[in-house]
């Protein structure tokens, strides 16, 4: 089964690198990060390069999620609408294996968006700001190594709710043949739930509530504050992994019953 999923994932990657629209997301993220110094000028009192990384990451966060949701929501529906899926599903590949390959592709895209943001913001911070240490009154509070470690941990933690987001968008994608409906549906539902989550007191159980939490810890550290990863990381992991499993199960249940006629 692993080898079949791996083959399907390799096929998905080979297809993705040949599609122009795949590059649009990272290009847009790059553009936003490159333009970020217009708002957060590096130099003078804002010489803290880490602060810029935190700022750039925070402004890309929502855009990144929308890009990831859009891309993931199109993964199954586009194949359903074109009919190309029928040539794939008559091969020796189970439907849940096909979905696993799509999930891995969506997660790879989330990683690409995150890495693009990171690479661009760190490059600008290093080129125009100070990334030697976070200090207060001449005293070093966090070394550059501490900050890089914090950043990497934030990336790793942020990828878990993003993966849940990918699974959620793929579930919506399995419901419809229309790519436009899948994309608008997944973003629309997320927006509505995000608006009502505090009123309904469900915020703590939603993966989307933890998208910014890891970056908040990194941002606090940029400001020299001592912010802890726990219990936020535990809650984020539980809610996100739980959502990931639920959405994967739902996607498989929907897709296995789906008739793939013309």
């Amino acid at each position, binding site marked *: 089964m692993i*080898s*079949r999923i791996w*083959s*399907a994932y*390799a*096929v998905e990657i*080979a*297809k993705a690198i*040949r*599609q122009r629209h795949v590059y649009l997301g990272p290009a847009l993220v790059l553009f936003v990060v490159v333009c970020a110094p217009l708002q957060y000028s590096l130099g003078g009192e804002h010489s803290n390069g880490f602060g810029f990384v935190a700022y750039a990451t925070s402004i890309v966060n929502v855009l990144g999620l929308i890009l990831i949701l859009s891309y993931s929501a199109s993964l199954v529906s586009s194949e359903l609408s*074109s*009919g*190309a899926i*029928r*040539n*794939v*599903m*008559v*091969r*020796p*590949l*189970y439907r849940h294996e096909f979905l696993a390959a799509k999930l891995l592709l969506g997660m790879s895209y989330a990683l690409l968006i995150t890495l693009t943001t990171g690479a661009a913001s760190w490059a600008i911070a290093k080129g125009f700001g100070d990334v030697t240490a976070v200090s207060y009154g001449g005293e070093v509070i966090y070394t550059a190594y501490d900050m890089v470690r914090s950043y990497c941990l934030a990336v790793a933690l942020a990828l878990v709710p993003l993966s849940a987001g990918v699974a959620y968008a793929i579930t919506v994608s399995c419901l419809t043949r229309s790519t436009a409906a899948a994309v608008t549906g997944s973003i629309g539902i997320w927006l509505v739930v995000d608006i009502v989550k505090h009123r309904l007191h469900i915020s703590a159980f939603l993966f989307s509530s933890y998208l910014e939490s890891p970056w908040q810890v990194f941002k606090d550290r940029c400001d020299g504050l001592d912010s802890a990863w726990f219990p936020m990381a535990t809650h984020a992991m539980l809610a996100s992994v739980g959502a990931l499993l639920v959405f994967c199960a739902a996607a498989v249940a929907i897709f296995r*019953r789906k*008739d*793939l*006629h*013309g």
Partner: protein
Amino acid sequence: MPTCVQLKDLTKCYGSAVALSGLCLEVQTGEVLGLLGPNGAGKTTTLYLLTGLIRPTSGQVMVFERNLERHFIEIAGRMGVVVERPAFYGYLSARDNLKLLARLSGREVTVDRALDLVGLLRVARQKVAGYSHGMRQRLALAQALLTEPELLVLDEPTSGLDIESSQEMLRLLRHLAKEANVTIIFSSHMMHEVEALCDRVAIINRGRLVACEETESLLSYDSTHVDVLLDAPEAAAKRLAEQDWVEEAALEGFTVRVTLDGATVHQLTAFLVAGGYRISGIIPRRRTLQEYFLKVLNP
């Protein structure tokens, strides 16, 4: 000969609409079965159930003596499928499309061999988006042949092809059936294709199997249908049509097409000779699949 495909009491419903109802069918290994029926009869549904693209509401699909649902991976690896209106990734070349599909099949295959078989090798580097319908149809057959399947399931494989290309495709399928003992199940609206290729014909109407016969016996000569060549065909057709032992006598060019009703060719000959006609030939007519098809659908 072992059974290759067995459809057991297959039913498929879409909501309250019944697309297929209690279909039972067996196909032997190496056999070529043609699936005929009017639009919406259930041909495509049958083929899709056979390939696992859709799931039956009830009943069982057995392929290579195994349950399709339980042994899908093994069965799919030995089956080639051409779906109706085949779609490919337009942004990739034909060769790249086949390479990706071959990778999913988990076998080392020579993509160019399949492209060569269907005459697409010269345009293999072109993006599929620029392909005509006929080229896509040929590419669909190439992807079905990629893994040298033991069973081919083809849904209107010659639709959209010009006469030359469809003849070429039929030749290839005939070769595969005869030389490689490939079992072929295919649906088509082209009666002459089914006549030329199939060992057996199954007719489906309104989701039910209404007939299943060997092609040879269907198309056998029939002594009640004769073509008569004689000196005054117009007058003869008129006189014959008045006889109660003649069901139909129609003029076609210089030939009178006669359908006898309870009489023999001897009686017909005697009648024409007595009437003073000079007969140059009485030819038993071969039944066509089209006639059989129409007769089955409109009994």
